[in-house]
């Protein structure tokens, strides 16, 4: 007598017919004991693993601060001397413009400029 079941039905009937595998009592007991034998780490209000972690982090931050501070100081010195050079250059260019405007050096104009400048 031929079987008119589809392949899916045949596989389903066949595999459902397999006897289930029962876990042993030992396994059931061992699995039930897992939460006791492997307690989950409770969340602590202290966010660091140990006292050394924040101390190390603090020391690192201080070292970084000192390094950055020193580098910034060097930059400031360079910036100040650069600004002074720029100021001299701009004063010279003003003088050049005055020469062009008045057709020669005018010490009076210099005096007037220095008076107007706060």
């Amino acid at each position, binding site marked *: 007598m031929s*079987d008119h079941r589809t*392949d899916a039905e*045949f596989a389903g009937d066949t*595999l*459902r017919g397999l006897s*289930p595998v029962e876990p042993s009592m030992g396994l*059931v007991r061992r699995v*039930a004991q897992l*939460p006791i034998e492997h*307690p989950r780490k409770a969340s602590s209000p202290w966010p660091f693993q140990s006292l050394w972690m924040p101390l190390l982090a603090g020391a690192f931050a201080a070292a970084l601060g000192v390094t950055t501070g020193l580098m910034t100081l060097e930059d400031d010195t360079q910036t100040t001397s650069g600004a002074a050079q720029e100021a001299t250059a701009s004063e010279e260019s003003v003088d050049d413009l005055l020469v062009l405007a008045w057709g020669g050096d005018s010490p009076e104009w210099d005096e007037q400029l220095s008076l107007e400048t706060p």
Partner: protein
Amino acid sequence: MKRIASGDARAFRELSSSHLKAIVTYCFRLLGNHAEAEEIAQEVFLRAWQKADVYQPTARVSTWLHSIAHNLAIDTLRKRHGGTLELDDERDQAPTSNNPAQLLQRKAVAQGVQAALDALPPRQKMALLLAHEQGLKNPEIAEVLGLGVEAVESLLSRGRKRLRQVLAPTEEPS
């Protein structure tokens, strides 16, 4: 799972009592060894307890547990085969003279079915077990096996045909 992630041991016991049998059965079908199946099942539930906080609620808990069990079982099979295991269907071939149909005549039906399953390429066997014994849907099987749904459908189709050929070789296929 949220309760388990917060350390609720009672919730964990409820989970294990609902799924332990299915996981042991799946591992046993893949490995054919009760002791190894139990060892893996224990590891599955240990991981479920320890990693409950990484569980994504997009998947059913049973799918997640089967995924862990599947990966552990594959590792065990690989160790057995000296570090390599051919999961693909390349070794798909006609049953040999030592085929499970002959075993079926000599042994009990359940043993014959198990032998027929063992004769299938591993992925076909896994897909059939997950679909018909464990009751997972195709997208869930795809997640466990790490494949696309279409690949799972193809595996199931070929696996069912092959199982039928092996167990009822004289019968006209549907």
